[in-house]
């Protein structure tokens, strides 16, 4: 481009695609088949490039996803993990209404009869004989533990997904803007991330949750979503920035800019969709991480408050009576471990499937 700048403009352009970006060629270029010809003819080729680039990306995009899906299905551990995650999710969503319909128990149902106000071991009825009523036993107030564990699953999953979505929104916007704008803005934005990165943020989250302790359980849960989401976007921002940095000098971005596409559209319509692979992988690994943090905070008593329950708060309740009613810890604890175990395998499998170069071993 630079070499051509000093040549007289009267010469015929050697490569129309190159000259059309900066300078207007003397005569309008021949439209290609399938192009939408604009009233400003000098942009026609650039527009066509964008379209063909997009078309190309799109075609490659679908086959990339299909490839990834095929590779994921070959990974036995990931498939098993996926099935377990699906089953546990289904159980958490459909379980409570089914239990209510069959045995009449809900997560906060405390029986009126005095002889029922005590912990029952799993599969034991009032008379001490085998019974299907409480497959996981009951807690200290005689509440059905299965219903509570399933509610815990709902809340843990909800926290995991919502906080991950919050971190996705913040992380993608921040990283993409920082990477695309570059220069001083990028440096400043990344310094901020560096500083935030080295904060012992879990401590700050504890202080936040303890100080702004909400009077309602729902309020405390919203606080939890916000707190966890707002601290887990940092790595996401770095990943997206890296992707955008490597993408932003490619021709389709140049072409988009040349056709007059605004900066926000370039970032969110052209760059972000192309950076989605690593983002999805990291998001799947964020869900179990956030769920673990939620459980940790609830275990310490800062998270989900009664009458609601999460796997963390159920484990905290269970520890109180570990010696005499161990099932109160074992069932919620092992359910949670199974869920995290499977989610981690799915995340690992997805990483291997989407990015074969990143595969270790």
């Amino acid at each position, binding site marked *: 481009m630079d070499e051509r700048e000093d040549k007289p403009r009267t010469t015929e352009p050697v490569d129309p695609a190159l000259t059309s970006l900066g300078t207007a060629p003397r005569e309008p270029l021949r439209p290609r088949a399938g192009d939408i010809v604009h009233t400003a003819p000098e942009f026609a080729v650039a527009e066509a490039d964008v379209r063909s680039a997009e078309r190309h990306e799109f075609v490659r995009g679908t086959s990339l996803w299909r490839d990834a899906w095929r590779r994921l299905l070959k990974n036995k551990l990931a498939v098993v993990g996926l099935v377990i995650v699906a089953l546990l999710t289904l159980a958490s969503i459909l379980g409570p209404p089914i239990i209510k319909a069959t045995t009449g128990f809900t997560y906060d149902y405390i029986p009126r009869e005095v002889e029922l106000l005590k912990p029952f071991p799993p599969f034991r009825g009032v008379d001490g004989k085998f019974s299907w009523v409480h497959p996981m036993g009951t807690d200290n107030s005689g509440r059905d533990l299965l219903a509570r564990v399933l509610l815990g699953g709902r809340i843990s999953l909800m926290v995991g997904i919502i906080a991950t979505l919050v971190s996705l929104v913040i992380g993608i916007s921040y990283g993409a803007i920082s990477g695309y704008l570059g220069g001083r803005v990028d440096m400043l934005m990344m310094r901020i991330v560096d500083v935030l990165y080295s904060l012992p943020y879990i401590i700050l989250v504890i202080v936040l949750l303890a100080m702004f302790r909400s009077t309602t359980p729902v309020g405390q849960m919203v606080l939890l979503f916000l707190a966890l989401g707002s601290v887990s976007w940092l790595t996401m921002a770095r990943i997206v920035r890296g992707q955008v940095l490597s993408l932003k000098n490619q021709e389709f971005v140049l072409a988009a800019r040349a056709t007059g596409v605004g900066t926000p559209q370039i970032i969110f319509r052209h760059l972000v969709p192309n950076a989605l692979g690593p983002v999805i992988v990291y998001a799947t690994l964020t869900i179990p991480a956030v769920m673990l943090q939620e459980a940790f905070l609830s*275990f310490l008593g800062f998270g989900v408050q009664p009458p609601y329950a999460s796997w963390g708060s159920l484990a905290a309740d269970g520890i109180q009576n570990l010696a005499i009613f161990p099932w109160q*810890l074992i069932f919620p604890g092992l359910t949670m471990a199974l869920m*995290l175990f499977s989610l981690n395998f799915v995340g690992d499998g997805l990483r291997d499937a989407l990015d074969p170069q990143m595969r270790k071993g």
Partner: protein
Amino acid sequence: MLRFIIRRLLITIPTILVVITLTWGLIRLAPGNFYSGEKKLPKSVEAAIREKYGLNQPWYVQYAKTMSHILRLDFGTSLKYEGQSVNHIIARSLPVSATVGLLAYLLALAVGIGVGCIAALKQNSFWDYASMTLAMLGISIPNFVLGPLLVLTFSLYLYWVPPARWYGFFNRGLILPVLTLSAVYMAYIARLTRAGMLEVLRSDYIRTARAKGLSEKAIIMRHALRGGLMPVVSFTGPALAFILTGTVVVERIFSLPGLGNYFIQASLNRDEPLILGIVAFVAMTLLMMNLLVDIAYGFLDPRIRY
């Protein structure tokens, strides 16, 4: 190198200020304070308290005072534990947390590196799959589930070790807390070692060493381990943060009088000087350790030039 250290220090100091300011802001912005309990205090008592702790001054004066005290490492007196200085509480509880954390980290290093090496050297064998599945299990089981399960088995059924409480340094009572705390790092370190070793074992300089006719043992011990363990070294920083959150839970489960337990109590009691003191102390330690790790990393890996 010197420039790198100076640049890192220039980031570290504002970070510490940000941590303290954020904590102070959170405590002050939240409605209520240490004295707003269930029972309303008489007006005169409240006025006296406000006077004593300088709560009548404008916020920036209070902020500046708090900051200048903290930066001189004078954390003041606890509100809840009357008459005890925060520095004293930290000095008393830090050894407990540090012992558990350090032992857990050493155990994790020993087991994790060993298992990771075996998995890498026998890649795709039964041992590889078994140890990596176990490692994933270690990452997935929350420590507040693992701890009680260990207590259940080894204390309540087998009567081998005491279930909880602090019996002093290097006591049998430390076995379960250390095991509980180290499980996660063990798993992480094993995975990192395996990945690092696999990458190094394929590299050219290992092929050169093989071609020289070095014994397999010398290749692994002298050449591969050094490069293969770099990810483990860089994990030290995050591991410190993990230890921090891990000890909070472990101290809670096993009722150990460590820093984490005091921090949780202080947060629940709104004991402002104690919260600020512990947060400031932990942030400073963490950031300094991270800096040291980065510097050590530069010395260990000759490819890195700052």
